[in-house]
Structure formats: structure tokens, C-alpha cells
């Protein structure tokens, strides 16, 4: 059992994360310094956790979607919608729990809408979710009427910037969500069914799996996760910025899931590794910020890092390297 855990730690994602962190450390010696300040931990590493949380949360939802051979391009826009709903409601005087519940419901509905298009109308996922990607941001702006809706609600602000046991609330939420969703997939049969549908939907239907319901659920979950991320982002800046909240984050989320070893062709997937993927991306971003690169080089550095990570994960490397670097572990019990 312990050996299994150890082997689990030697997977390429965690190695890559470690590599990125070490590079950051080399570029900025104070990278690993963590202090205790005002009842919370403070340091670049904590920033990685805090800033990486929204993409990690998106990736948690996205992993299941990608496992079904789908993709959800709308998550960034759904973030904006959820943030806008929560902000306008608290500004209108509703108590925070109601605002949060409403935002989550809206996210869920957006996700189910995507699921409906994909599962019932049989529209290709990229196109189906492209609809909401385009329209969603418009809906968010409609709600805020183009303003940045600023609020002072302590609950929402706590969700975005508070801390729990010294850790940023956003990261805590991401981790809790990761555990819950992993349990949902792995302690029930849902994870297996999701993989089955992703690998062969025809065979799944013939084997008695209700693929439609499953797809609706997976997209619904993705929408829900996006709403959580949207509330966090709004809470973080104490305002709903419909124009910019979650902009292009769908690409980061997809990237995170793929770095986490899930194939875009569906099938085997891992939620925790997708979360690791999200933190790899954020470690890269934070590294660029603290190391003082000129901003023009941001994208090039990012492209280079992606390429390196892919190289480590590619079959080519596993042929050369002694450790078997395969995306998702293949247990071989004897």
C-alpha cells in the first residue's frame, strides 16, 4: 500500500510541478519563503495555491467532461455570469447565502444546458459550448449592465480572500471540491461509466449505461464548478467584472486537464492530477511574475514550458527514461 503511494508520487505531473517550483526558486531565491502574518500564511508558494485555485476548480469539472470525449469552452463565461449574479444580488440587498445559492444554480443550469445540447441534441461539444462561451459573457454584462459591480459583503469577500487554518479560502475550497468530486467519481460507479462513455458510447449504451443522464451530470458539474470559481474570483476583487472574469481561463483549464494526463480523446481521467496540472500552470505564471521577466516574454516562456512538460510526458521520453512515465497509472497487481 505504501509502495503504491510512493509510486503514485513519482508520476510525471508531480515531477513537473516540482521542476517548475525549483526553476522559480533558482530565479527568485525567496520563492519558498513562507511567513505567518495576520493569522494567515504568506508567501509566493501560497500565492500559487491561491491564484491557481480558480483554474483548479474549473479543471475539476472539466476533467469529467474531457473524459467523455467532450470539452467545455463555456466555463470562463459561466464564471462571469455566476460572479455577476452573486454581486448584483448582494448589492440589491439579498443575504449572501441566497446570492451564492443563486449563482451556483445559474452555473448548474448553464452546465445542464450544455449537457442538453451535447447529450440530447447530439451537437458536437466544442460547438455546443461555444454557444454559451459567446453568449454567456454577454449575459453577464447584461446582468451588470457593463459596470464592475463592487460590493462589500463580508461573506463573499471571505470566500474570495479569507483564510482557513492559515490557507487561502480559495485553495481550501478547491481542495475540498477535489476530494468530493474524486469521491463522487471513484467511490461510486460514475467514474467508470464516464470513462466507458468516453471510450465507446455505442457500447456503453448497449451495456445499459444511461449515457445521456451521465453527460448531463458531467456538464452540470462543470457548470457548477465554474460558478464556484466565478464567485471566488468576484470575492477576490470585491466586484463582478463581467468583461474580464474568467477570460480565456477555459483554455488554461483544458490545458490543466491534459497536463494531468487525460486524453482529449476521452477515457481514463484523474481529477487530482488535473488539479496538479492547474497548479503547474499557476506556478509558471507566478514564476514569471516574481522573476522579473519583461512581460513581452510571458507567452514565449509559457509556450516553452508547455512544450517541456509535453516532452516529459511523451512516449518518446518514457522510452528513454528509466521511470515509466505514463499519464494515468496502470496498476499491475499480481
Amino acid at each position: 500500500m505504501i509502495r503504491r503511494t510512493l509510486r503514485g508520487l513519482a508520476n510525471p505531473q508531480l515531477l513537473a510541478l516540482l521542476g517548475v517550483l525549483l526553476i522559480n526558486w533558482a530565479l527568485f531565491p525567496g520563492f519558498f519563503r513562507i511567513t505567518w502574518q495576520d493569522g494567515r500564511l504568506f508567501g509566493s508558494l501560497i500565492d500559487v495555491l491561491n491564484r491557481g485555485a480558480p483554474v483548479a476548480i474549473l479543471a475539476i469539472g472539466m476533467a469529467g467532461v474531457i473524459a467523455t470525449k467532450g470539452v467545455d469552452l463555456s466555463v470562463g463565461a459561466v464564471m462571469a455570469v455566476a460572479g455577476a449574479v452573486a454581486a448584483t444580488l448582494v448589492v440589491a440587498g439579498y443575504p449572501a447565502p441566497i446570492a451564492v445559492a443563486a449563482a451556483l444554480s445559474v452555473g448548474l443550469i448553464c452546465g445542464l444546458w450544455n449537457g442538453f445540447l451535447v447529450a440530447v441534441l447530439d451537437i458536437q461539444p466544442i460547438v455546443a459550448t461555444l454557444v454559451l462561451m459567446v453568449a454567456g459573457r454577454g449575459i453577464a454584462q447584461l446582468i451588470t449592465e457593463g459596470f464592475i459591480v463592487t460590493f462589500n459583503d463580508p461573506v463573499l469577500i471571505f470566500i474570495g480572500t479569507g483564510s482557513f487554518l492559515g490557507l487561502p479560502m480559495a485553495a481550501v475550497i478547491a481542495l475540498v471540491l477535489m476530494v468530493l468530486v474524486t469521491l463522487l467519481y471513484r467511490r461510486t460507479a460514475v467514474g467508470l461509466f464516464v470513462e466507458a462513455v468516453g471510450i465507446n458510447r455505442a457500447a456503453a449504451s448497449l451495456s445499459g449505461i444511461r449515457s445521456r443522464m451521465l453527460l448531463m451530470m458531467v456538464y452540470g458539474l462543470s457548470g457548477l464548478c465554474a460558478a464556484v470559481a466565478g464567485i471566488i474570483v468576484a470575492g477576490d476583487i470585491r466586484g463582478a467584472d463581467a468583461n474580464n472574469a474568467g477570460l480565456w481561463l477555459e483554455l488554461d483549464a483544458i490545458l490543466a486537464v491534459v497536463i494531468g494526463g487525460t486524453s482529449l480523446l476521452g477515457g481514463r481521467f484523474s481529477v487530482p492530477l488535473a488539479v496538479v496540472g492547474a497548479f503547474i500552470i499557476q506556478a509558471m505564471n507566478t514564476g514569471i511574475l516574481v522573476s522579473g521577466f519583461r512581460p513581452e516574454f510571458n507567452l514565449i516562456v509559457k509556450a516553452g514550458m508547455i512544450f517541456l512538460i509535453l516532452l516529459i510526458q511523451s512516449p518518446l521520453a518514457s522510452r528513454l527514461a528509466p521511470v515509466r512515465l505514463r499519464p494515468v497509472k496502470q496498476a499491475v497487481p499480481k
Partner: protein
Amino acid sequence: MADAGSYALEARKIVKIFGNHIALDTIDFGLRAGEVHALLGENGAGKSTLIKILTGAYQPTTGQVLVDGTPVTLDNPQHAQKYGIGTVYQEVNLLPNRSVAENLFLGHQPTRFGLVDRRRMERDSRAVLQRYGLDIDPASELGAHSVAVQQIVAIARAVELSGKVLILDEPTASLDRNEVERLFEIVRDLKQQGLAIVFITHFLDQVFAIADRVTILRNGKLIETRALDDLTRTDVVRLMLGKDIAFSGATGVEDARPLGEVLLDFKNYGKKRSVHPFNLTIHKGEVVGVAGLLGSGRTEMARIMFGADAADEGTVTIEGKPTTIARPTDAIAHGFGFLPEDRKIEGIFGDLSVRENIIIALQGKLGWFSRLNRDEQLEIAGRFGEAMDIRAASLDMPVKLLSGGNQQKVILSRWLATDPAFLILDEPTRGIDVGAHAEIVRTINRLRDEGMALVVISSELDEVVAYSSRIVVMRDRELVAELSGENINPGVIVQAIANHREGAPA
């Protein structure tokens, strides 16, 4: 051994290792011009792997491939085609999204002014297909045709490409007798022209009908290469299995067994534009065989019964209670199971493990929340894996790495694990070796004796006769005859298939 120089295509000391599994262990294999060489072995013996190495689809771990005595490196199938090696791989490996003509000529399309000359390509295609008695529109999409038609197109393509060597990996698995006969004529003709032909099949009759020499593999090892004249069937089976088995071909049925209670009753059940309404009563403890020509609608009938396509007319009662079966989950809830015809497209989950492939239908029945844990899964998978003699290095390896026959056993196990009351098997023995074939026939008999009801579709008349308590015959998407007792013999069935407008002769 003949001297090496005379081989058109030769493999020397081939070793192929997948991960830590040795698929081929030092194989020597030589192919002479003008011979038909049968390559035999159980499921998973390594036949397809050897073929893929001979045609450049796989690279050998060690060893050499020689063409006309000269060592060559075959980087890919296209390379092999340049040497005049044409291949039909196991499982139809064509492009369902392209036209028949393009599938025939892909990579060798006739061109004019640098552009593909479509008209000529289609004209040539028509001529080629004519030789196989196939009159279809070459411009039509390949995927619109039945598996059998696709198989013939694959064969025609390989024949067109083969200037020197033709390799056929189980080409007859989905062909009917006439089509097999026509294929054999063509093969004999090509042999006359001096081609070297490799032929893989699990039908011993066909081996003896056409092959000159045989090579037998077992567990990745070369057992024997010999002229067929010196061998009897029993010899061949013994060499393949490494032991004697009682040949369980035509055991005959114990006639006049009392029928069990009625389990299912389909009344005027059908679907417009698909299957004419049919009536069929199925009792517990009986096997209803379904015979008919290719494309006669047997698969469609099976899919309707299982709810994979919803019926739009007629009724079904289960144990006397009227029910609707609109989708597979309805059927499964009533204890149905369905082994589809095309296991690659509708059966296996390639990337999932053998274990998960076995338990998935049971898990589907249990629902989302009563998950079988790993140990339970291993126990179930292990039990059925053993009962069905599934050969896999591990229950946790992806099922796509198993040989075709073993995949079929996995899917059968999947349904048996749900403890079904009624099983529909569509071509359950297609592409399965003698041992596994006997195994499956035995399983069918056992299940029947345990009181299960089965509907079995098969193109093997001998086989249908062997286990059916009753046989229904389909023609032109219509159930045209029902045979029982005395009438269950190949002669009557063939007559029923051929007859026009005439019901059962008894």
C-alpha cells in the same frame, strides 16, 4: 526445409515483445510463390502479430524479414505495398467515411493532370467488384454497407495491391458460403499466377479445402510447418492445442425436450423501414437459432428485441406481463443481455481493463451508487475469466491488447456476470478458434440447461443446428420460417432460406 532462396517472403528468427509479454518467440516462416499457406493457432497464438510484422505495421523486436531472399526493413504498410504485399487485416480495417471506390484504390488512385480521375476509378472499381459478384455503387459510402460487403471490399483491395504476396487474416469470418466459394476461386486463380498466399482462419474445412502447407503457432512459438497432405484434421487440432480434445461439432440435440414456460412473447413486433413485424415466442431453457443470408436483417431483429433500436409496432410480454422495451436499460432491467455483432464498434471498451469490461454491465444494472469495489470486481472478473478461459496477462491490462477471440469471451462474460434470463448472441463464434468455439458452444448448451433462454444468430449452419431447440429463418428483413424437431438440419434450413414465399415445411 526447402532452400531459403525460393521464398518470396520470409521471416527469420522473429521475436516480438509487448511490454513484458512475448507475443512471438523466434519464429521462422517462409512463403513460396504459388502456394497457399495456412497460418493456424488458437486465439492469441500470435498469428495477427506475425502478419503485422511481415507487412511493416509492427517492427520486430529482433529478427529479419526477407523479400526474395534479400533482407528488407519494412517501415510501414505502404512500404510493404511497394514490394507487392497486399494484406487484409483481421477486423475490417477500411475507411467507413469514404466511398467504396476510394477504399479500393486509396494511395493508388488513377490520376489525370495530377488530379484523381474519379470516373475512371469508379469504372475500375465496378469491374473489380464484379469479380466478387458485388453489384454496388462504387461512389457510395463504405460505411453504409454491411460488414460482409466491407470485408469483400477489403479483400478486393488487397488482391489488387498484391503483385507478389497476398495475406488474408481471417477474411472469411463474416462471409457466407457462396462468398467464401467465390473468394476461393479467386485465390486459386492467383495461386496459379504465382502469388504466395497466406491464409488465416479458424475453419478447418476451409484450410483443407484450399491450403497447400500449414504453419502452426501456439503461445507465440512455432510448432510446425508442414505440407497439408501428411496431416489429418485431428493432427492439426492436436498441434494447435497441444492436446487432444473431443471435437464438439455436431453433437445433435436431444430431441423432444419438454419446453419450459414461456418467457417472452413478441407479437407483431417490428420497426418500419427496418424489420417486418414478426411473432416469436421464447421459452425458458431453449435456444432459438436465427438463420438467414447476410443482410437478411438478423442483426436488426436482435437490436429491436434488445431495445437498441426501439420497435414502433407490436407488443412484447414478459412472463405474461405486457412491457415496453424502448432502450437497452429497459431490456437489461428485465434480465436481457446482448452480445453485438461488431465487437470493436459496439462491444469492447478498448482502453478499459479486462476486469472493468467484464463487470460493466453488472455495474450498470446496480446503478451509480452501489459500486463494486476492486476486490469484488477482481473476484467476478477472475471467476468468469477462468470459466471462459480468457487468456490475458493480467485482468488489469487494457482489453484492446487481447486477441479478438479473447475479447469476444470478455463480452460474453460481461453478460453472464449480470445473471441474465435471456441472452441474444449475434455471431458469437465469429473469429474464434476451435478450442474457444467449442467452449462457447458448450457454454450455450450449459446456459440452456440451466434454464436460460437464448437467441443465437449465426451464419454457421452446422453450429446453429448443434445447439438450437428451434430455428427461425430470416429473409429480406422478414421472419419467414420457424423450424423445429426433425426439420433442424442444414438441408431444410438452406431450403427455407432459398424458398420463396413458403413457410416451414412441417
